[in-house]
């Protein structure tokens, strides 16, 4: 994000195990915020606080080296989750809304 937009630091659930990494580079490719860099045959987390927990990297890491709690950063979804006691759900109005989640 070039530093222009930053969210609350030190909270994200992103974890990566360098021993399992094959250096394929897919994580760096799919991440929309440039969180990973791949150098010398392994990936590393270069900018953790830029992570938005979208889950693209973990899903696409064939070696299973990445873990992150994927979710929607939508206040309404989280409230729904609190009320129902289930996971955050963002069926805001249930009409395929594109604004939320």
């Amino acid at each position: 994000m070039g530093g222009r937009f930053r969210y609350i630091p030190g909270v994200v659930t992103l974890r990566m195990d360098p021993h399992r990494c094959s250096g394929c580079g897919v994580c760096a490719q799919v991440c929309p915020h440039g969180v990973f860099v791949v150098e010398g045959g392994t990936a590393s987390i270069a900018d953790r606080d830029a992570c938005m927990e979208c889950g693209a990297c973990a899903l696409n890491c064939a070696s299973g080296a990445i873990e992150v709690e994927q979710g929607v950063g939508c206040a309404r979804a989280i409230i729904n989750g609190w009320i129902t006691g289930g996971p955050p759900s963002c069926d805001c109005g249930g009409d395929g809304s594109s604004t939320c989640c």
Partner: protein
Amino acid sequence: MSCSAIGRELSAPPGSDAQSCGPGACGAGPTSTDGAGQGELPGYRRWHFVSSFLETPVGPVPVVKTSLERPDRVGAALVRLGVGRGRYRVAPGLYAVGAPGPESPVLVTANYKLTFDSLRKELAGLNAWILVLDTAGVNVWCAAGKKTFGTMELARRVAACGLTEVVSHRRLVVPQLGAPGVAAHEVKRLCGFRVVFGPVRAADIPAFLEAGMKATPAMRRVEFPALDRVAVGLVEFANERRTMLWVALALLALAGIGQGVFSLQRAWLGLWTGFAAYMLGFAGGNVLCPLALPWLPGRSFALKGAVAGLAAGAGVWAFAPNALAGLGLWLGAAVAASWYGMNFTGSSTYTSPTGVEKEMRAAIPLQGVGLAVALALWRLGVGGV
């Protein structure tokens, strides 16, 4: 039972057609006969954006135009106002742009019509296939989060459309923002196609293809320009109509009840001043906050919203009946803006759910206290408790 190969409007409910894409499902397929236009079938209306049909080994495939026309613009405007958003979709399946052949690239997208339109309008002069997944009319990013734009749907759609017979290569260009739903290595295993993640923005697709399917780092980054921020903020005007009604009713009741059992005069004063302040807060949270996002203080959206609300809410002094009510109205506007600012996390492109939850736990109690104080001041101000 929906065969996209005719390019007709979706008539079956979403989900019911997962297995029925391709010529097999269309019976004999729309072979043209004398006196009928190619691809015409009784009872099916052809979409205005389908210019013709291309004969392929799996039957006729609709060729779509790369320019947007009046119906597209009207539809887009309505959907932005919240009208018919859930039904704004095209039939999933295979489409063509230009005159694609077996070597032409396959671009994967969602069946939300706004998404489909924003892709095809960037493809002028290109020859390509578009594979539309069934995301129930939700855009790529949201659908990927819900996994409807996902590995299984992609593999299934490739098979159902007989893609292996249409193209000789085994590559699918999937928009990068589909990656939270599509596991490239799984797709390869399930249907033999290699996923190449394309750029974030459809506008970069020609350059991406030109460069031999290579995205520059800039093409891989999600930005959040002011225009986008305001556009998603404005949608709340349509989304929140019901809340507005409840707010109005609550204000009316709160102002009316009291000395003299129920005073209509006081209720009216309370209603319009309170509602005007709420709308100032609404604009603060949904318009000013998105617009000024990078410059508002703090990381928390609730705080950014509150600051925007203090600015917008200063407008209450133009109509506040007295200082006491004015203070209540101003504070109320700030609380409303803080709430809507906090909700804007869902539209933003860089907030993490863990962070949003943390900010909400801190902000909601404060918003509650602020609201209670605001209501008390305003109620005392409009008189006769």
